[in-house]
């Protein structure tokens, strides 16, 4: 046992000492370029997962939420703007995006173990999934909605009177979009009760 530290020590000094064969500069350059390639491929991979097609690659998403979303304003509207899954579900900034993608590994796990692989199982779990999503959005003040919408940009003349009034009250009370706009893109879970 007493030899172990020795081995570790030797390896460590070898690592610390720049290689005799290659110049330090060459090694740094190699590191630099392989870094670019790695991050490039990594980010391309990340971008590929941000398409609508990727998300509906699984029937769990395609047969349920996708069908509902297709009937909503965010899918097709007079302005011709299509809001896709990742616009609402995947954070734009790096840290939160990484966190969300890491959590998304749970979806792969759910897919492998079939947590929502039938309509019945999906409906039974929907409230839990929706609640997770509401909490995530609430925690960041509905940042994904606000990437496109903002209270400031709402026109008192073009927006109907009552929504406008509610928005100005909501803004003053520090309310977030998701507090009042649940179920904008999918059916609400049947267990959901409106706060009266």
């Amino acid at each position, binding site marked *: 046992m007493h030899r172990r530290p020795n081995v570790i020590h030797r390896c460590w000094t070898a690592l610390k000492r720049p290689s005799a064969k290659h110049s330090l500069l060459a090694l740094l350059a190699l590191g630099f370029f392989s870094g670019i390639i790695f991050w490039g491929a990594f980010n391309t991979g990340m971008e590929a997962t941000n398409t609508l097609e990727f998300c509906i690659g699984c029937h769990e998403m395609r047969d349920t939420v996708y069908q509902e979303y297709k009937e909503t304003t965010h899918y097709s509207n007079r302005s011709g703007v299509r809001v896709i899954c990742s616009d609402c579900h995947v954070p734009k900034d790096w840290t939160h995006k990484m966190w969300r993608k890491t959590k998304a590994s749970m979806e792969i796990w759910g897919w492998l173990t079939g947590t929502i692989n039938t309509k019945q199982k999906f409906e039974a779990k929907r409230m839990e999934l929706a609640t997770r999503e509401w909490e995530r959005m609430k925690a960041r003040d509905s940042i994904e909605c606000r990437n496109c919408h903002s209270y400031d940009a709402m026109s008192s003349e073009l927006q109907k009177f009552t929504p406008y009034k509610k928005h100005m009250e909501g803004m003053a009370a520090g309310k977030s979009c998701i507090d009042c706009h649940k179920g904008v893109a999918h*059916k609400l879970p049947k267990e959901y009760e409106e706060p*009266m």
Partner: protein
Amino acid sequence: MRICNRNRVAVFAVAASWLFSGAALAAVDVDGAKALAKQNNCFKCHSITTELDGPAYKKVAEKYRGKATAENRLIEHITSGEKAKFADGHEEEHKIVKTSPPKDKAQIKNLVQWILAQ
């Protein structure tokens, strides 16, 4: 005797259709109606019992109690975007209900029947 029988059949048919329509009236799908109202933000302006921006559904049901045209009137109200008068006097287009699949008459009718039954 023949005629008599035919009459009896006719009477029976009428009675049966009454029973049937009675059953259809009674069979409001409450969960379906509430789910549609929730999804459409109806409860942002209406409650069943209290006045919000819009009238309580109990009030609406009272207003239309016994009126034969009630159902069609209210279907028109929630599908046409006609002007609604708010308590403060201003008017704006009333919400148009959206169903899935789009424009499903049966779901809209069911919602109106539920409101009228409050």
